[in-house]
């Protein structure tokens, strides 16, 4: 009977995978890894790339792959690390990281086409994860390339003898042929109004406004060109000094940092709108936060997905993970018709019990000389205007009594410093005041007809409560740097910009292209990324389908599908003749066609055999055609004469052209 195999039995012969499919599999997987390289933790991307390199090395130089125990151990360890890092395996970032690592491990044991197929499927899934993660226009070509590469890898796996060029062109052609159907499905495939299975995915914060403000601690304000949101006005545009976009309103101050008071639920103060009602549609870029930046004072919550707080902020129910758009109506001027509630009165005049003594003293002296609250506001603004204050994006850091330090020592700061100092002055004088953060301004993009607000246009201003007027907006920065209201911050501070910003500023041509690029982005976001149920209905309506009936649409879709399939079939079936057959062969074929009326050439006959057959059956033609057939045999099989070849072939062709069957033969 069988004897137990020795412990160190020879490794069973594993069929060595052909290198080319493996190489392409690795390429497709690397593409998937690179799409996530800046999103997953660096060590995860590193490990995945190392595993790819390892697999390639073992493939090229031979050598064993790690045994099943080692692989199992490695897999467990990696799952453990991911768990330790993310505290979950659920969620896009954790899931992507895990997929990356596990697919990398799987790569180590890929041998046959089946394993390679699995790897390509994993690459496609990584591509899907990338699509879910980010949808910028700039990345769309990358996604396309990755799909192309993966399909080419599939072709290579299915037929390892394919040349790289053939695989690439085959995959590219197939994908191109698929585009019409993809567009059709994209427009007509029914969308769901909401998610049916939520996965947390807010594990990575993006740039944007935070809900606290600490003016003293910021050494430099980042000037980012990234768009924050875009606004299409459905009517008149507010003048540039009125374009205040309200974000977090900050009430609580501890001497250093301003904070929201997030859990207050109150009714807004009753007020009466003044001036024009601005209707607009706003497109928010994903910020992973909840702020919807409405124009100054929105009338109501624009949507069921957001609520309006008592201090006029629009706060979404969910963080903004995807682009979102809403429609709202706002006023830039209002008049309060109610006195301020006692709670608000107390809250918005509150200061820390101690600190900033010189500021308090200043407020008291200003208060003493000013009669009314309005006069006090004016006096404080005058103080800022005449005190030699300078607007700068790179102020000094401030000490413990930050406001004192700013007002009496450095006198250099940006909007946050001025708003903070002004509100402290107001509160010290007993006037309710609050800091409002958000954005100011916006660049008019003529190509899309909208206002683009960039991250760099983040701003902070103040609101004070004036008896009989309600909350009034006061922008102390405007006093120090009045240009800030008229022109964008980027125009204002060319020396503060990054190199890229300065370059753009210096070249209007470049700036114009940047605007075009933004318009393209806006279009992309609006019509592609945000193509949802509503957009779908809009598009259908524009196509003349007012009330989409599912059955009718289904039939229309089936018809379109059949049309597309027929087109593809026609395209593939079209015989693509080789464009350049050899002229010598063509001339010979022509001669044979001429002779076919009397003696057709059998497929196996060469020119001389054919001549012999002719001679046997039709000697009178034989004599006439023999020189031509002999000449063909010479040209085709004789010793090469490169110099005269083209000429010889031309002569032969002309001779064939001139030659015709003798009349007597033709008549018979």
């Amino acid at each position: 009977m069988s004897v137990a195999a020795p412990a160190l039995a020879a490794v069973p012969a594993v069929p060595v995978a052909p290198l080319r499919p493996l190489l392409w599999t690795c390429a497709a997987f690397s593409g998937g890894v690179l799409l996530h390289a800046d999103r997953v933790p660096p060590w995860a991307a590193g490990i995945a790339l190392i595993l790819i390199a390892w697999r390639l090395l073992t493939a090229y130089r031979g050598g064993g792959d790690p045994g099943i125990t080692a692989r199992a151990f490695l897999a467990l360890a990696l799952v453990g690390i991911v768990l330790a890092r993310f505290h979950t395996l659920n969620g896009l970032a954790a899931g992507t990281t895990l997929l990356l690592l596990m697919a990398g491990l799987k790569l180590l044991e890929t041998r046959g086409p089946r394993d390679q197929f699995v790897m390509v499927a994993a690459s496609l899934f990584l591509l899907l994860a990338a699509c879910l993660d980010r949808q910028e226009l700039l990345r769309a070509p990358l996604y396309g390339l990755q799909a192309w590469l993966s399909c080419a890898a599939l072709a290579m796996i299915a037929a390892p003898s394919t040349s790289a060029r053939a695989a690439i062109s085959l995959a590219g052609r197939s994908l191109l042929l698929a585009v019409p159907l993809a567009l059709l499905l994209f427009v007509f495939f029914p969308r769901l109004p909401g998610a049916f299975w939520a996965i947390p995915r807010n594990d990575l914060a993006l740039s944007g406004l935070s809900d606290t403000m600490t003016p003293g601690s910021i050494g430099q304000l980042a000037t980012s060109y990234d768009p924050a949101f875009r606004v299409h006005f459905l009517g008149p545009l507010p003048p540039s000094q009125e374009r205040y976009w309200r974000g977090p309103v900050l009430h609580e101050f501890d001497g250093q940092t301003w904070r929201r008071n997030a859990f207050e639920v109150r009714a807004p103060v009753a007020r009466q709108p003044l001036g024009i009602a601005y209707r607009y549609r706003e497109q928010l870029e994903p910020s992973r936060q909840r702020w919807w930046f409405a124009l100054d004072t929105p009338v109501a919550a624009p949507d069921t997905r957001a609520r309006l707080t008592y201090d006029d902020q629009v706060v979404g129910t969910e963080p903004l993970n995807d682009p979102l758009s809403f429609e709202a109506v706002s006023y830039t001027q209002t008049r309060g018709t109610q006195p301020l509630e006692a709670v608000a009165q107390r809250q918005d005049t509150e200061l820390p019990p101690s600190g900033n003594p010189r500021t308090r003293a200043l407020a008291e002296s200003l208060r003493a000389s000013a009669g009314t609250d309005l006069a006090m506001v004016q006096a404080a603004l005058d103080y800022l205007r005449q005190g030699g204050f300078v607007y700068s994006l790179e102020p000094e850091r401030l000490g413990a009594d930050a406001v004192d330090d700013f007002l009496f020592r450095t006198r250099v700061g940006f909007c946050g410093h001025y708003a903070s100092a002004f509100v402290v002055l107001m509160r010290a004088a007993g006037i309710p005041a609050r800091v409002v953060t958000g954005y100011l301004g916006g660049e008019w993009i003529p190509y899309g007809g909208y206002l683009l607000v960039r991250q760099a246009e983040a701003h902070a201003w103040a609101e004070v409560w004036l008896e009989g007027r309600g909350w009034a907006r006061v922008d102390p920065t405007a006093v120090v740097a009045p240009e800030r209201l008229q022109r964008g911050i980027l125009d204002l501070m060319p020396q503060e910009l990054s190199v890229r910003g300065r370059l753009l500023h210096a070249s209007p041509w470049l700036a114009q292209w940047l605007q075009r690029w933004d318009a393209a982005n806006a279009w992309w976001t609006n019509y592609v990324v945000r193509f949802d149920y509503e957009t779908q209905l809009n598009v259908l309506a524009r196509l003349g389908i007012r009330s989409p009936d599912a059955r009718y649409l289904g039939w229309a879709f089936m018809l379109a599908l059949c049309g597309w399939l027929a087109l593809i079939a026609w395209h593939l079936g079209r015989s693509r003749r080789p464009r350049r057959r050899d002229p010598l062969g063509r001339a010979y074929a022509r001669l044979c066609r001429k002779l076919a009326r009397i003696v057709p050439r059998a497929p196996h006959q060469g020119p001389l055999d054919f001549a012999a057959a002719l001679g046997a059956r039709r000697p009178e033609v034989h004599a006439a055609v023999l020189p031509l057939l002999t000449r063909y045999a010479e040209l085709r099989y004789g010793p090469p004469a490169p110099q005269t070849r083209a000429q010889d072939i031309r002569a032969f062709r002309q001779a064939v052209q001139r030659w015709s069957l003798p009349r007597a033969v033709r008549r018979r």
Partner: protein
Amino acid sequence: MPAATAFERPRCHPLAALGAAFAARTQAWMRHRQGFDQLPARLEQRRLYILPTRGGLAFTALLFLMLLAGLNYANSLALFLTFLLTGFALVVMQQCHRNLLGIEVVAAVAPAVFARSTGMLQLTLGNNGATARPRIEAALHSSALTTADLPAGMQQRLELSVPAPARGVVRIERVRLSTAWPFGLFRVWTWVHTPITLLVYPHPHGVLPMPADSARPAGLRTHVGVGADEWFGLRPFRDGDSPRQVDWKAYAREAPLLVKEYVQGASELRMFEYALLAPLDQESRLSQLARWVVDAEAHGERYGLVLPGLRLAPDRGPEHRHRSLAALAVFGLEGDLR
């Protein structure tokens, strides 16, 4: 021994037996639907069948997952990717179908072989189209595939091995042509129903000496030896002649190919009789007779064959050899053969 067929399946699991029965029904249906093919036959649309491969099914599952993810997140890019890959799969289906459509089955022959060796079905496929047809697979049963690339406008010969365990006639009733090119997501296939018979000669085996010349009196026999062959003359080359017999010197003088004929032992005649091998059983007798035929032919002797109900007059040459071995191959099987 009954005639072996190439489709004998080992008996195993009842489910497998059920599957086999189902496959047999399907095959009968397909044959009934298509009828027998006259070669050369072009592969037309109505006889091509296509289904996703296992990879194709996995791809479909992947697409379904992608669709779910895209719908769940209402993510347009993910949905577009899903739809693009769906379209891609449908394009691939058509390409795969195209790859087999219009191929011409030019010829299918199976030269006779001896038992206990492997026969070869030579299948000639033609591609009259303007595009190449890569990765065309041919098989008698799904396990052993032979793959070939058919360049545009060319013919290609594929060889399929047919096991020939015992003498008789192996009937190959159908050949399966398939392809999964270009992406391995679909496989299109067709059955070519063409009656090909592979004649399997008996295994030449036996140690008995060849019977002595039975046609003339012993006294007249001349001395037999290797050196005793007599020059007989020259005749034109015929297919099957041994290169050793060719008069190469004459050929070098630009004469046509001629074969030198010798008459060995002054035209020795041997009759191989089935009845004389009485002590052996039938198969051993046939093997012994085959052995003698092969040997006699190799030595250039003239030989005849006497079987119950059949008598082949003494002769020699490849045709005679084939006739003799074929008679041995089908001996006693005529009833089975039709």
